[in-house]
């Protein structure tokens, strides 16, 4: 996976963008935890083989959560969440689900680390990697998704039994040296710095808006 720190940074940015009037230390904390939560399956992979980037990176988790939230806030006559936490609670819950999908699952899906998106229905890992370029010589070059046999295909390095996602908690090799990666490249560093600076900026904005 791209490091959990990057998921957290994206979670911060998503929270800043979408929390709106519900923005405060507590709500941002919830959204950031939602962004980092999927990476806990690296720890669970010590007990459940092949759980990394699969067990908690399944799209089914946020889909079910969103369904429950929709049922509670829109379908029921008296919403439990709204009664207990009001408008604030509903907003934070929706943004947290969005953060789980975008910052938690999405970041890994769009990298070579890949995600078993449909786990446990399918144990295949998917990775959306490639390029999309308009060229005057080659026309439209698009390699993220391939069209073949009537199916849309994306890159896949294997299934949970054949492909091991490396992590500091569960390294692939027997080498005793472990590495907890925090930042892998320049753009990730920029993203982290941007998220750090955006927090006080948003605090100032909210102070001015009230």
């Amino acid at each position, binding site marked *: 996976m791209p490091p959990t720190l990057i998921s957290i940074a994206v979670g911060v940015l998503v929270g800043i963008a979408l929390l709106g009037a519900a923005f405060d230390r507590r709500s941002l904390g919830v959204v950031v935890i939602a962004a980092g939560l999927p990476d806990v399956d690296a720890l669970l992979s010590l007990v459940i083989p092949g759980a990394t980037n699969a067990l908690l990176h399944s799209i089914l988790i946020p889909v079910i959560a969103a369904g429950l939230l929709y049922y509670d806030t829109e379908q029921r006559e008296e919403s439990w969440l709204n009664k207990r936490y009001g408008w604030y609670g509903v907003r934070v819950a929706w943004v947290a689900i969005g953060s789980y999908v975008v910052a938690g699952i999405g970041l890994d899906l769009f990298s*070579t680390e890949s995600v078993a998106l449909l786990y446990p229905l399918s144990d295949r890992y998917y990775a959306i990697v490639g*390029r999309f370029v308009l060229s*005057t010589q080659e026309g439209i070059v698009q390699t*993220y998704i391939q069209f073949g046999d009537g199916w849309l295909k994306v890159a896949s390095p294997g299934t949970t039994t054949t492909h091991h996602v490396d992590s500091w908690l569960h390294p692939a090799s027997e080498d005793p040296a472990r590495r907890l990666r925090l*930042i892998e490249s320049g753009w990730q560093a920029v993203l982290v710095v941007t998220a750090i600076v955006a927090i006080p900026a948003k605090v100032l904005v909210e102070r001015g808006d009230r």
Partner: protein
Amino acid sequence: MPTSVVHAAVGFLLAIGLLGKYYDRRALFVVLGIVLFPELDAALGLVMDGAHRTVFHTMVPSLVGGGLLYWDTTRTDSWLRGHWGEYGVRIAWVGLFVHTFAHLGFDWAHLSGINVLWPFVDQFVTLDGEVYISSTEGIVQTFVDISSDPDTGRRQIDAGQGGTTRDIHVSTPVQPSKEPVTGPVDRRFPIAVGGWQLYLIGTGAFALLARTFQTNRYEEDE
């Protein structure tokens, strides 16, 4: 550059939250204009060597602009506030933030980097490296490398300095290469290169879409 589409997407992601109650379509268009503006130096490359990533890709306007903006908005008779009110002040600050982080920041970490302190210092700088905690080596970072020369004992700082406007050319659709080439010229307009750029575009689009579904709390309170 990470493509202009990526800059715009990250710019929107930042602007949505930071515009706050002044968020509207007009403000978004202004931010879009600010975030794409630096790419115009690609056209200047036709008349000046190495203009792309130099003329508008320097941190100097951000520093000077930030200072000016602070000075103007804190004095009692602010020109900006007098003309456009709080709305204009907010857009100016958000524009500065987005320009610095969504555009310059991401270009800094891409290919030959940006000419950070041009026109005072003509030096391209690239941000590249990694940070990790290793069980054998401790905390390791490779973004800035400080070492002393074994022969002279002088201290060297390597923060990814590249060439100058004379020898660096970042390819653009306007000017694919510095010297004219024979044969058909391939002009490339990248939309996204690599999973992470498509991901950032998707994240910006998600935030814009999600924002349109949200009710505006500020209006409800009034």
